[in-house]
């Protein structure tokens, strides 16, 4: 497999990676590098000329070892960090700083503790001065999507970790971003909760087919959720391989037992750990 790894540093006229997206990319990450300065004039290369094209409606997942810069990549797309080199385009327009078009769900709990669940979901809508009559059905809809209608008046401190992340998802979706960035959103949850969150996300995604760029270190999660899995190398992070996941949708948790799932998993494990590719 190693030899077939596609060089991703060229500006590709055709979409980068193994999948065959249907239209022009909604999101283009174009030869982006990120270098952190250390004291004493040294610096660390966190991301090394990464290029990814994400098509509208695609669920793209980045998987990689910890410290490979996959979270940094999302922060770059969000506009919260500036790349040292390269550019990021959303619908052809270069990203300059954060904005509502690129919503994000963070690994850390980022609900505003002084706002109720309802007010949290409403936050972005209020910032753009949406009238109350328009806000109300939208907030209600997304709270219903994540099954938290009954907790509308609760404060975040009264919620469990999984519930807080569900609110964070509703909050990001209610704002109707063009791309939803998800940075290991279930990373802090226990494995049972994590499974039910994956199920919930699959269901919600079936309803809106939002363009998603999802980061995780969990291989099962990556395959289960993604149309495509981008495998990153250890630092400095590069895209090693882009693997199309052709499992049918709607996906179910039971699919982790299917041969195709296992074949993809074996391939990814091989890329990440250098094992499991011997029989192929």
């Amino acid at each position, binding site marked *: 497999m190693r030899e077939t790894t596609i060089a991703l540093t060229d500006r590709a006229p055709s979409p980068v990676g193994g999948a065959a997206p249907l239209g022009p990319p909604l999101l283009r990450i174009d030869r982006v590098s990120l270098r952190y300065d250390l004291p004493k004039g040294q610096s660390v290369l966190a991301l090394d000329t990464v290029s990814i094209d994400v098509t509208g409606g695609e669920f793209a997942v980045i998987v990689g070892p910890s410290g490979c810069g996959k979270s940094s990549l999302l922060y770059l797309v*969000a*506009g*919260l960090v500036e790349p040292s080199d390269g550019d990021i385009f959303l619908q052809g327009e270069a990203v300059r*700083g*954060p*904005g*509502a078009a*690129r*919503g*994000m769900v*963070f690994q*850390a709990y*980022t609900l*505003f*503790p*002084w*706002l109720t669940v309802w007010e949290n979901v409403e*936050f*972005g809508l209020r*910032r*753009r001065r949406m009238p109350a009559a328009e806000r109300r059905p939208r907030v209600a809809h997304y709270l219903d999507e994540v099954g938290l209608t009954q907790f509308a008046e609760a*404060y*975040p*401190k009264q919620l469990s970790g999984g519930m807080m992340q569900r609110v*964070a998802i509703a*909050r*990001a979706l209610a*704002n109707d*971003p063009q791309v939803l*960035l998800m940075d290991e959103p279930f990373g802090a949850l226990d494995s049972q909760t994590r499974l039910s969150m994956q199920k919930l996300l699959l269901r919600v995604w079936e309803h809106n087919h939002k363009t998603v760029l999802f980061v995780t270190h969990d291989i099962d999660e990556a395959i289960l959720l993604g149309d495509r899995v981008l495998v990153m190398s250890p630092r400095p992070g590069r895209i090693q391989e882009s693997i199309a996941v052709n499992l049918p949708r709607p996906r179910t948790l039971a699919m982790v037992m299917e041969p195709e799932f296992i074949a993809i998993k074996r391939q990814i494990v091989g890329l990440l750990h250098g094992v499991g590719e011997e029989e192929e």
Partner: protein
Amino acid sequence: MASPPRSRRSLAQRCLTPKAEIPRGIALSTGVGVWVLVIALWMLACYGGLANPIFLPSPDQVIGAAVRLAGDGRLGRDVWASVQVILLGFAVSSLFAVPVGLLMGTFGLVRAAVEPLTNFIRYLPVTSFVPLFILWIGIGLQERVTVIVFGTFFQQLVMIADVSRNVSGDLLNASYTLGANRRDAVLHVLGPASLPGVLDTLRVTMGWAWTYLVVAELVAASSGLGYISMQGLRGFQVDQIFMAIAIIGILGLITDQIFSLLRRWLAPWAA
């Protein structure tokens, strides 16, 4: 009376376990018990003839002093004088310290401008400035207010700057990805996120303000609780000194409770 949830551990075990919750009734009665004990020891010392009444007045003498001073209107006047000075001084100090402190913790430029000077001034003992203030301002209300402002402002500034600096960057990032601009981030994230910490700071610094008040009144004043205390010393009326101390304590307790209520009312969402 609702019975507390049964615990398998005995009460003694629970009380000795680090950080374990103890029943509310036990907490309350222990608090009251300690007060009763202190007063009982005091009474024992006085009425048992263990202490010289010139140095340690008995509870009834202290209450007598309060009644005496209240009777001729002096007590009310002096309490009001002190409360006036402390409210004024504290309000002026907080009015500037809260916004400047929040900006200091939020914007590096404000911090760079204000912090070095603040850190110099806040280590200067306020008491050493009292003679200077008397020279500049005289011994009126303004001088005492100045002492309080000078004593609390710089402390508040640093503490409130810390509060806003400690607001999680993740919350700000989340707001930006939801479309907040910088103004929104300050008004709708940093502001509310800092509120509980600001109230805590005000509560703590209010206690210090009482200290500076008494310092100012002891040195130069013609009214106030510190002044009564000083009069008590001159006339060798120890009961009057005790009364002044007790009233300051009670007023302190009341302001503390007010801040505690304020926090629960304004920031019920905070832990």
